[in-house]
């Protein structure tokens, strides 16, 4: 019998031995290790769809302009630019010393090619509309115009001329957006699959793609052809691709990563509580809000909508529930945007949202009565949100606040993100959770969402006066006039309250104490270009 025991113990021991191994070490190079939360759908700037692509692209490509560490939009591939007095035509002069990672010179022709390519309807680029600001751009993408009519032209190798459809005050900033990055015309034409593998990938930014193991890891290394390579201290950046936030966090905590974003919500709360110096609450321009379906009773009544908004305690939501350093919303435009005088946009507009339970309750009751409804009738309404622990908690808090303050029992319904979008587009909802992160640093990126014809206007807000203000803001060359129009528009929408803003987003991230030089542009992920590891 003892022999059998021995066999059993031996078997278990053998298993234990098989299961032991050794962990790897790190080299002495300046390689920053982090995680990119999802596999990029493409590393071709024209085909990028969001954060997971743009974070890598923002380090491997560079546009005519870029956002520097002081968060200013400064010339990048362009040496300088001129703009006509009517703000319609921009002429960019490229730097002399710019090359692609394969050694080819970056030319104005590459920009012309790239911008027309992103508009090509057959390419079906998600972000094609970011080039609609160019005259003839929208017509080409919608199949109503031709490629030749798109008003972007390489005058010579170093000069690019762009004529806009209307004055666009934030156009320079748009040229720093990844959809408008250049691509190497010769490379793209020779091999349509150039962006699918590291071996054939060619870029013009501070780093170049050297390894891409799909769904597992991405490695980028310093681009020796980059004109400002002396400012780049890192040898490279290693991105893992792990979509589980908790596993990524464990790896950061275990020392496998030097930097991590995003972080699990509970981790942010705990780090804040502990005042952990590795936590950075990065600024973000985004608004978390609830859509109210203004096409159905009683949400068509402004008093009902204001009642719902006034009885929502946003301060409690951000401090006790969201806990990521978010800021209670003051309107639809988040903090961080600058006005015509270069000052914080919000300062002049001020707090447009009031927390006033007594007044809210009164308005709500009046509104319901006007619609011939009672509080009990309201109990059939449902707030829909896409499945996520954070959205659920916030929705439960809102439900409870409305229950206590208004005496209504709003139902909650979670669903797949795609289903929620479908229902919003079809107008099949009462209240729905939504959010928007700005594309560029101008309040219009938020204000235009609720233009009556906007495909994003899920609340179906329709106010001709508002539309008029949006038009002025989008087309006027006079800065003061357009900001005045935006301020008026925001006041208008917060008076009508078709959407109930909840909070302004932040982007918390973690970085080890030895990581220096990371900065967070307001509309992008943190920039690692000038980071250093002072171990």
């Amino acid at each position, binding site marked *: 019998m003892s022999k059998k025991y021995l066999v059993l113990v031996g078997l278990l021991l053998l298993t234990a031995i098989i299961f032991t191994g050794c962990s790897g070490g790190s080299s002495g190079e300046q390689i920053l290790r982090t995680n990119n939360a999802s596999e990029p759908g493409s*590393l071709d700037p024209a085909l990028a769809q969001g954060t997971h692509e743009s974070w890598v692209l923002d380090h491997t490509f560079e546009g005519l302009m870029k956002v520097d560490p002081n968060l200013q939009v400064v010339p990048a591939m362009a040496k300088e630019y001129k703009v006509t007095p009517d703000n319609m035509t921009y002429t960019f002069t490229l730097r002399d010393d710019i090359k692609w990672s394969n050694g080819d010179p970056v030319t104005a022709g590459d920009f012309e090619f790239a911008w027309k390519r992103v508009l090509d309807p057959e390419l079906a680029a*998600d972000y094609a509309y970011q080039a609609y600001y160019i005259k003839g751009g929208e017509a080409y993408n919608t199949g109503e115009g031709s490629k030749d009519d798109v008003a972007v032209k390489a005058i010579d190798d170093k000069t690019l001329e762009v004529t806009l459809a209307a004055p666009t005050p934030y156009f320079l900033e748009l040229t720093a957006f990844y959809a408008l990055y250049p691509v190497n015309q010769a490379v793209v034409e020779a091999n349509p699959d150039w962006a699918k593998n590291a071996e054939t990938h060619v870029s013009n930014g501070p780093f170049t793609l050297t390894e891409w193991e799909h769904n*597992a890891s991405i490695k980028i290394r310093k681009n020796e052809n980059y004109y400002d390579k002396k400012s780049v201290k890192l040898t490279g950046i290693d991105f893992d*691709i792990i979509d589980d936030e908790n*596993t990524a966090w464990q790896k950061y905590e275990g020392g496998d990563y030097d930097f991590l974003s995003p972080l699990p919500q509970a981790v942010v709360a705990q780090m804040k509580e502990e005042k952990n110096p590795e936590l950075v609450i990065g600024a973000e321009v985004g608004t978390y809000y609830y859509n109210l379906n203004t096409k159905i009773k009683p949400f068509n009544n402004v008093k009902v909508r204001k009642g719902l908004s006034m009885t929502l305690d946003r301060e409690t939501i951000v401090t006790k529930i969201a806990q990521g350093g978010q800021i209670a919303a003051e309107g639809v435009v988040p903090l961080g945007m600058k006005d015509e005088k270069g000052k914080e946009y919000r300062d002049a507009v001020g707090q447009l949202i009031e927390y006033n339970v007594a007044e809210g309750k009164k308005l709500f009751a009046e509104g319901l009565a006007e619609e011939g409804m009672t509080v009990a009738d309201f109990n059939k309404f449902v707030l829909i949100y896409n499945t996520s622990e954070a959205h659920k908690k916030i929705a439960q808090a809102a439900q409870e606040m409305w229950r206590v303050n208004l005496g209504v029992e709003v139902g909650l319904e979670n669903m797949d993100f795609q289903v929620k979008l479908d229902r919003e*587009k079809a107008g099949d909802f009462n209240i729905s959770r939504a959010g928007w992160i700005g594309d560029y640093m101008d309040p219009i990126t938020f204000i235009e969402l609720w233009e009556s014809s906007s495909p994003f206007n899920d609340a179906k807000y329709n106010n001709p006066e508002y539309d008029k203000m949006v038009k002025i803001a989008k087309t006027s060359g006079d800065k003061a006039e357009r900001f005045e129009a935006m301020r008026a528009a925001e006041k208008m929408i917060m008076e009508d309250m078709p959407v109930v803003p909840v909070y302004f987003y932040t982007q918390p991230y973690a970085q080890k104490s030895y990581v220096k030089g990371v900065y967070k542009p307001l509309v992008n992920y943190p920039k690692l270009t000038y980071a250093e590891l002072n171990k």
Partner: protein
Amino acid sequence: MKKYLLRRIIMSIITLWAIVTITFVLMHAVPGNPFAKEGKMPPVVYENLQKKYGLDRPLIEQYGIYLKNLLKGDFGDSMKSRVETVNDMIGRGFPVSAYLGAQSLLIALIIGPALGAFAALYQNKFPDYFSMIIAIIGISVPGFIMGTVLIQFVAKNVSWLPIGGWGEFRHTLLPAFALSLMPLAYTARLMRSSMLEILGQDYIKTAKSKGLEKSVVILKHAVRNAILPIVSVLGTLISNTLVGSFVIEKIFGIPGLGMFFVKSIVSRDYTLIMGTTIFYSIILIFMLLLVDIAYTFIDPRIRLTKEGR
């Protein structure tokens, strides 16, 4: 045997066609669209995408095109990835999942039946309790809990193994162990009950009374027959583990096929949904067929055709 095989193959093709059709119809019936986005996508951009992937055509036409391509072995382009086709994704994800699955299955099939056999041989004694405690843990503790526990204690606290990732042998150990627990426990329990039943049979008593050595009686007569129930569940077990476990792959950051299953549904990546479902079905159908054939080799009493009786 030949007739049986032919019949089974024809049945398998019909089953597969039914799966393709039902999945295709259900997929399009579920609300949601691969290109819907919480963003300012103008309708024309959306239409360009619909056109590019043929979603603007009537459903029956889409179905016809899909079947035609499928017959050529082409699962189509992923609607979310502009980098890889569905064939590429399966071709890359499956070997990863299969490697991990095979490793975990190996662990499970070596340790599980052995534990079960020991438990039966020493019923109500220490080896029995020990084996069954392991089996209970394996069955009742979900893989993601075990994975998290392993990450915390084996990877994070003592740094014996990496927390997650993929590429080296050491990356496979924790997930393979976490993945093996369930089949290990399952086979241990099956083996135990099967062994107990067989050890009480007359032919075992006869073998013993004939003076055969205990080890011969156990290995040749008891184990061989007791293993039959395990063989019968092997098909499902293999197909389940080979195509990957979404949860384990997710928490360990493994780029396997399991991950694609759920991701494709969440993002409504139609072609990927179809591709992974069909691929999984083929493996399952094939494994079940193999198990039926394997039966005949293990148990001569079982014949596949009427003529054989």
